[in-house]
């Protein structure tokens, strides 16, 4: 662990990413305490520009809602959707990839065709279709994002399992009479963990981008304030109040950038061999 941290720390970008992400997480946690009032409630006249009134540093939107409050509450939604949808995607992708890689043959063929199918169809369009047909509640948004983002997990896990399957320690486990399930869970998967962690950190970033795009199109949960929704709602007043679209976009950009930087740092720290090769 200490070795991991010292390698991670050497990547300056990753440390900056970690700091940004920490700030976003603090905002998300602090939102209900700093802004106990609903981010949907009207607090002042509409279109109050930033830095003009004490207590409303970022001004108000077209309906007189506090932009800063929306930003804080939006951080909760972005992080929640990013994290949970990634967990769900891992829960779909890991078993499929592990089974395909471990058993090979027909099982592999069938599962990989299935994965390929989902990888081929345009994922954003599928997410739109799913949310247009089912009600866009937070749960469905998370599910739709998970459904379109699990295939890379399955492919990665399959590859890792394939390369681990014939190693001595797995053979030893087989000889000692352990069941297949136990071997996969206890021997193979733990060794495949580092690349999965790296991929997962990047997936959280992609999921946040996806969520914001869907909310922008009006396919987010209508009851939660999100950054994508804020931009979508401000789109029609772009000419007169550009900052209403600009500010939430910066929030998305910084959060996604932070997660990508962390992902790279994790990659460097968890796969030291790879780093030597490419630097």
């Amino acid at each position, binding site marked *: 662990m200490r070795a991991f941290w010292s390698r991670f720390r050497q990547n300056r*970008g990753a440390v900056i990413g970690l700091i940004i992400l920490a700030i976003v997480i603090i905002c998300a946690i602090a939102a209900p305490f700093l802004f106990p009032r609903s981010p949907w409630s009207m607090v002042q006249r509409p279109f109050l520009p930033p830095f003009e009134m004490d207590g409303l540093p970022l001004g108000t939107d077209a309906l007189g809602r506090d932009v800063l409050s929306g930003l804080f509450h939006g951080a909760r939604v972005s992080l929640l959707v990013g994290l949970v949808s990634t967990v769900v995607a891992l829960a779909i992708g890991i078993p499929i990839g592990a089974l395909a890689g471990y058993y090979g043959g027909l099982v592999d063929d069938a599962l990989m065709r299935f994965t390929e199918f989902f990888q081929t169809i345009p994922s954003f369009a599928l997410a739109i*279709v799913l949310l247009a047909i089912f009600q866009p509640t937070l749960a469905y948004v998370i599910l739709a994002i998970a459904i379109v983002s699990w295939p890379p997990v399955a492919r990665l896990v399959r590859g890792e399992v394939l390369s681990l399957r014939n190693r001595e320690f797995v053979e030893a486990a087989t000889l000692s009479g352990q069941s297949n399930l136990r071997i996969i869970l206890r021997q193979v998967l733990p060794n495949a963990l580092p690349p999965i962690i790296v991929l997962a950190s990047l997936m959280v970033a992609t999921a946040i*981008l996806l969520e914001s795009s869907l909310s922008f*199109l009006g396919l987010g949960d209508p009851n939660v304030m999100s950054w994508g929704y804020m931009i979508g709602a401000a*789109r029609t007043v*772009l000419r007169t109040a*550009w900052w209403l679209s600009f500010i939430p*976009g910066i929030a998305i950009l910084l959060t*996604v950038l932070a997660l*990508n930087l962390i992902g790279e740092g994790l990659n460097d720290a968890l796969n030291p061999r790879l780093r030597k090769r490419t630097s």
Partner: protein
Amino acid sequence: MLGFIAARLVKAVFILLAILVLNFVLIHAAPGDPAAVMAGEAGAADEKFLQDLRERFGLDQPFTVQLWNYMKGAIQLDLGFSYRQQMPVAELIWDRLPATLLLTATAFVISIVIGVAAGVLAAQTQGTWWDTLISSLALLFYATPLFWVALMASLLFSVVLGWLPGFGYQTIGANYTGIDRVLDIGKHLILPATTLGLFFTAIYMRMTRASMLEVSRLDFVKTARAKGLRNSVIQRRHVLRNALLPVITLAGLQAGQIVGGAVLTETVFAWPGIGRLMFEAISQRDYNVILGVFFISAAMVLLFNLITDILYGIVDPRIRLTK
């Protein structure tokens, strides 16, 4: 080579059929009965109308018969009827498809050309500030939400600077013909295509850079160097050619993303393509249109994939041997 293409074609057809089944299942999985869903689109919901719909679309027949009828229709490019627009869905899509093809193909080309060029430059100037600049830009573009950068670009280049049109496909009422019309459309195309391609430009930059550096270390490059070949020849003929292989694979995989991204770009720039059509259909809950666009965009992705597969087969003969 022919066998290789045939195998890919068969696979593409199977995927298309599977998407049709998925479409069918989705409309039936929607909460409420499909007749009500369709009636909702039409904006009416009295019982007699529902019954008419059920009979007309055979909704009282067994599931498998319905599926069969649906597939038969779809293969003949009958994608249902849009009650909102009072037009067959296939016709609606057909009208708008050229605009989307133009937009996505341009975005695709822009992102590959700029991405590969910048990636090569970064790899050759590794460690200098050029490399730092390009790599940082790639990181930034990669994290930027597509719809937001589209909005900001239209604000900056169209509203503030007034350099480029930020709206539509051509100047309304200008009635240009010939070369003027082409130039006019081209001008309208710059902002949507560049912003749509931005994310992918970033991917190609990073991928090309990494791939170039990776290949440069291989033995055959050392051999070429030992033979006394000039560096520019080595870079172009030996390194770049091999480094481009993973980039081509990636290009095929990204095609789907570009088509999906078109919904956002077309929405922001009022580009009259199928993405914009889908956006309008979302707010109207026009399911037949949504599913139709989904099906056609999947078909487009398969086509792009097929092209990159064939390209790959030409560039790298080894691939043809591994099915």
